[in-house]
């Protein structure tokens, strides 16, 4: 007798709905055991991770701030992935957007430039992100170069460009040679939504992006094209859809969104350009995109949830003296269970009683 995974004839919609809940349940069970082994009260630990951050306005704001770039980038990536185009370089597009937008901020510093500065920064950042993403897309379409490799490698190019600029031409002249630009002027800063908090206009922009993506995918021909090209390339060709054009389009959109996220992060929470402005947002967003099942609303929830684990992890470190490594294990286990449970949507467990002939035939 053995347990095997068998492909379902049809995807199970019931499981699709409850699989995230099963995953969270299994995570909680596993973490309870882990906390008990560490000698920490599991109930208090889980409370610190999941409940405490949701119970005060400050933490809720921080969750939104943390989720904003993740959601914006992940929405763009989901369009690429739905169209079967593999943009892995959102981190680089994020940095290029940050650099391009900062250019205006740095050049207008100390002048009495008006309110046009911030909008111009946002537009330029999105354009730069889109152009930067088009490099691997064009290489893919024209020369068949793997967009996975080229987009990834361009991350390091962007990183080094940023590094060069803040150490050289854009360095704060009063900054003792430290690698950072001067603090941006108020007109070059993303406005805060709540006095004394950190919630900023970027979170609203992220929500608009989610809504726009939901409309694009659900209600437009272009959205339909994107999904068909990804899911059934042959059918798409018969339908006369141009998959190359869609690769260019989805890469450009995702680059624009990553670039926009980059400048919002720099002109918002950070306030100046410096190395290390992204703790890997472009890569974490890949996880967010898949955790949200490439669905705009799902991505919003996934982004907020991942942000919650970061904030909760910090609070657990403070309140329970739980090491950071446990938070990382926690995130890893959660992702593991989510992906494992997702396989139940297309597959099911089945008990098989071994039949010698079948076994031989299979061997």
């Amino acid at each position, binding site marked *: 007798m053995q347990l095997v995974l068998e492909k379902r004839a049809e995807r199970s919609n019931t499981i699709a709905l409850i699989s995230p809940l099963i995953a969270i349940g299994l995570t909680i069970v596993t973490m309870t055991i882990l906390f008990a082994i560490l000698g920490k*009260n599991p*109930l*208090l630990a889980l*409370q610190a991770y999941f409940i405490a951050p949701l119970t005060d306005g*400050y933490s809720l704001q*921080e969750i939104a*701030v*943390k989720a904003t770039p993740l959601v914006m980038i992940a929405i763009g990536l989901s369009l690429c992935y739905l169209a079967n185009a593999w943009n892995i370089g959102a981190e680089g597009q994020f940095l290029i957007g940050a650099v391009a937008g900062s250019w205006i901020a740095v050049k207008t510093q100390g002048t009495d430039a008006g309110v046009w500065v911030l909008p111009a920064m946002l537009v330029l950042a999105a354009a730069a992100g889109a152009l930067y993403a088009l490099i691997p897309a064009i290489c893919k379409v024209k020369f068949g170069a793997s967009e996975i490799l080229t987009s990834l490698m361009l991350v390091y190019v962007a990183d080094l460009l940023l*590094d060069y600029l803040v*150490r*050289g031409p854009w*360095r704060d002249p009063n900054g*003792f*040679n*430290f*690698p*950072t630009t001067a*603090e941006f002027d108020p007109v070059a800063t993303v406005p805060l939504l709540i006095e*004394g908090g*950190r919630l900023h206009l970027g979170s609203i922009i992220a929500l608009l992006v989610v809504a726009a993506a939901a409309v694009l995918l659900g209600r437009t021909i272009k959205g339909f094209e994107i999904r068909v090209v990804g899911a059934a390339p042959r059918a798409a060709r018969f339908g006369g859809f141009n998959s190359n054009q869609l690769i260019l389009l989805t890469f450009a959109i995702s680059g624009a969104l990553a670039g926009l996220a980059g400048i919002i*992060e720099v002109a918002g*929470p*950070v*306030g*100046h350009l*410096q190395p*290390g*402005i*992204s*703790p890997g947002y472009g890569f974490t967003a890949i996880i967010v995109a898949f955790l949200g099942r490439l669905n705009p609303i799902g991505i919003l929830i996934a982004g907020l949830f991942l942000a919650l684990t*970061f*904030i909760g992890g*910090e*609070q657990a*470190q*403070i*309140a329970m*003296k739980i*090491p*950071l490594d446990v938070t990382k294990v926690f995130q890893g286990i959660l992702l593991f269970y989510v992906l494992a449970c997702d396989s139940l949507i297309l597959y099911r467990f089945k008990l098989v009683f071994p039949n010698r002939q079948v076994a031989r035939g299979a061997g």
Partner: protein
Amino acid sequence: MRKSLLALATGLLLAGSIGAASAADKLKVGFIYLGPIGDLGWTYQHELARQALVKELGDKIETTYLENVPEGPDAERAIEQLVRAGNKLIFTTSFGYMDPTLKVAKKYPNVHFEHATGYKRDKNMSTYSAKWYQGRYIQGLIAAKMSKSGVLGYIGSFPIPEVVSGINATILAAQTINPNIKVKIIWANTWFDPGKEADAAKALIDQGADVIMQHTDSPAAMQIASERGKFAFGQDSEMIKFGPKTQLTSILDTWAPYYIERVKAELDGTWKSEDSWGGLDSHMFAMAPYTNMPDDVKKIAEDAQAAITAGKLHPFKCPVVGQDGKEIECKGGANLADGQILGMNFYVKGIDDKLPGK
């Protein structure tokens, strides 16, 4: 089910009230760490100091740390989390936390902050750092004596003044022994990345360097030098166990006396915003034992250490000549002024390299 929920609620309430009771009695002191506490370098030394602090004042204080906090948008939140958890004195232990610390300090005027190695201060925000260039000067003397090839290998982290002044102090010292000494510099562009640090050490040795010095935090370069049979200096912490036949000495960050002093001041209500920049005389750092060198070299090192501690020897004694052959303006009387060292943005004559960003 309902019973267990009730038990859960009671448990949480109890735990909450216990937490509140102990918090009221003790001063809460928080720390933000750049690396993992097990980096065996920079963060490790801060962690050792925190442990010493707990040992000394454990009955009056409660400490908390957040490790691996990136110097980016997350830092401000991490610092504010410590404030909101009730910490009244917070040490942020890396340069990149400067602006985030300042932002949080402005928001919470009743909480005191201590920022390591920065230059921005406020009524409730002090800075503290060490004159490591003094230790570098001693290392420069030893290196020039021990090098057979006359080529030193230097692994830089970032071309910021603290690191540049270390390189200059090293070379100025080495030139007093060997006027033709050469130095090869590789910028790792990281504080902690054992892989990159090891690669840099290999490349430097391949270029003829036989004494390796570093301004990065891991013992990786020490291990490479040890494998290749060269000499090396440790950084931040005692690294002799990674190169028993390799380490000449190490600059040891000894934060404990400072942390204990500042926490005592906070307990007494005498804490004031200050700019502490201490050297060998004030024990902000120490030199590891001088090992793997002949007695005469050891004596040179010890004499230099004594002279610097006594204030008789200053590594940046005027005239200091820049790379272009021009004398640097001497703003501190007999020596370069502290401000010139804190903002050092030039190489001295004899360094055959270009400072990045110049």
